[in-house]
């Protein structure tokens, strides 16, 4: 099994120019069909409204709309261009409380910097292969983490 990057488009929201370039370079090297990048969350949301990407990779701390606010906006079922879009948060914050906050906002995956291309690929694969449904409550819309993950296998001939 592999990620079919040739079928996928990405939006990368990261205010650190070094990490933004690195993330874009990794995705392009993996073979992504399209990668659009921006330094702030508000622009990322605008890019998603112009043409929804298949996956969003976002930093936490950004000027204007931060990664948490971006995640909440994308998970807003009434206003989001795609409330199911996989969101991978890539941040230097590794504290447990921060991770829990990101999960409660509805991120699909969380990676703490520094990150290797291998870890990035493996986390993306885990996010894309996630078969769990979403759950909607008055305060949350996102992956249902109370369920165990299923195993994805190729279709039998």
């Amino acid at each position, binding site marked *: *099994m*592999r*990620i*079919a*990057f040739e*079928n*996928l488009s990405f939006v990368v929201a990261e*205010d*650190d*120019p*070094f*990490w933004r*370039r*690195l993330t874009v*370079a*990794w995705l*392009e*090297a*993996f*073979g992504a069909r399209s990668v659009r990048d921006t330094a702030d969350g508000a622009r990322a949301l605008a890019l998603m409204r112009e043409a929804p990407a*298949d996956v969003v990779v976002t*930093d936490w*701390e*950004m*000027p204007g709309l931060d990664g948490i606010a971006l995640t909440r906006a994308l998970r807003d079922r009434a206003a989001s261009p795609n409330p*199911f879009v*996989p969101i991978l948060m890539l*941040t*230097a*914050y590794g504290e447990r409380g921060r991770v829990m906050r990101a999960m409660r906002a509805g991120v699909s995956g969380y990676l703490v*910097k*520094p990150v290797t*291309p*291998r870890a*990035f*690929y*493996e986390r993306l694969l885990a996010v*894309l*292969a996630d*078969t*769990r*449904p*979403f*759950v*909607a*409550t*008055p305060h949350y*819309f996102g992956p*249902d983490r109370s*369920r*165990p*993950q*299923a*195993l*994805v*296998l*190729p*279709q*039998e001939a």
Partner: protein
Amino acid sequence: MRIIPAPPKAGKSSREPTREPSREPAREPRPTSPRPRRETVPVPADLRERALAFDAGYEEALEESVARAEAAEARVRADTGDVLAAEAARCAGVADGFAAGDAACRARCLRAAHRLRGTALGVASPQVARMAASLARLLAGAESRTPGALVAAHVDALRAAADGKADARAAETLARELEAAVAAVLARLR
């Protein structure tokens, strides 16, 4: 693509001893508050079907992709030059004229320190990452009572460490001293 569901969680075994019926008088059922509305929403499968391909082995695909990404990373690192010194100078610029009572100024400094921490982690400079994290902790913890002198001390140390003026041992000592000073300030404020 076929999806094998995860096994159900283990329930009670039929061998478990059954409890004898209680002889106490039956209690009134407690009034229950209404459960919060919770709806399970299936995720459309089209993305998963496009995103996963089964024409290659997992390890083989991973190794090829990682090798290409590592080569791209080497090119980015060669192109970006001394990104750490540039980010440290940026952080120092933001912290110049720091005013603890100005919430917007504190937020700008906090973002700059956090961003420098991320860059330092990316270019494998643990001492700069520690100093930047220490500055971020100070700003987030002390808020309007942040001592300007300690912010300035962080900025000087960050400049020296990022420019390579302080060797690794000196930078580590500086980082440790700054962390201790921040811990003392935060303890005093608590």
